[in-house]
């Protein structure tokens, strides 16, 4: 069964450093998403991406964040200058349909900012 993959599974970085979280969505999917889950809290939407542009973003997704689909398979989330409060599990998801399509989630990348 096709699945969404994410690398790395765990990333430790120092405050102020840039990080790039990588995702490989399911190959025929067209809609891509990033969510995050701070430890002990709920999963929060960050951004959705379609046709090489952001379709919606949350207030969390400020200028420090960016997303990119650099090639036909990868989907990345970049945090330019990490803060302690960016420590969280970051989930990538993809779907093949707008609105009614199921979002398939990856296993997540745990980001720890020290």
């Amino acid at each position, binding site marked *: 069964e096709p699945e*969404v993959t994410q690398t790395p599974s765990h990333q430790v970085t120092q405050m102020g450093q840039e990080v790039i979280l990588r995702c490989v969505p399911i190959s025929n999917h067209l*809609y891509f*998403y990033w*969510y995050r889950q701070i430890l002990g*809290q*709920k*999963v*929060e*939407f960050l951004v*959705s991406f*379609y046709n090489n542009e952001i*379709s*919606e973003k*949350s207030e969390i997704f400020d200028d420090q964040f960016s997303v990119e689909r650099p090639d036909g398979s990868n989907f990345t989330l970049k945090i330019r200058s990490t803060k302690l409060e960016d420590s969280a599990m970051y*989930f990538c*998801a993809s*779907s093949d349909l*707008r*609105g*009614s*399509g*199921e*979002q*398939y*989630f*990856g*296993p*997540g990348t745990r980001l720890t900012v020290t």
Partner: protein
Amino acid sequence: AQSVTQPDIHITVSEGASLELRCNYSYGATPYLFWYVQSPGQGLQLLLKYFSGDTLVQGIKGFEAEFKRSQSSFNLRKPSVHWSDAAEYFCAVDMNTGFQKLVFGTGTRLLVSP
């Protein structure tokens, strides 16, 4: 603001007993409704979803959920819980803006006792 409430943070159920996890949403129209399960170290797996039609929906692993418009609820049920059902369960709402931005509840952790 739109929100999803899962009033039970933890629930403990004996193996073989029935289960009901509560979910209420606050939204002006009928959204798309989802239940996801997250096992430790895993991503989010879709159990079931409601878009329209029959208000009782069947999902994977023997789960079902009932949409009650009058109560703005979408409770998850299982008639007989197995030890492998121990996990965190998230109710999520898509406000039907077109790009499936999911709003999650805070989750309910299910513990299964022998």
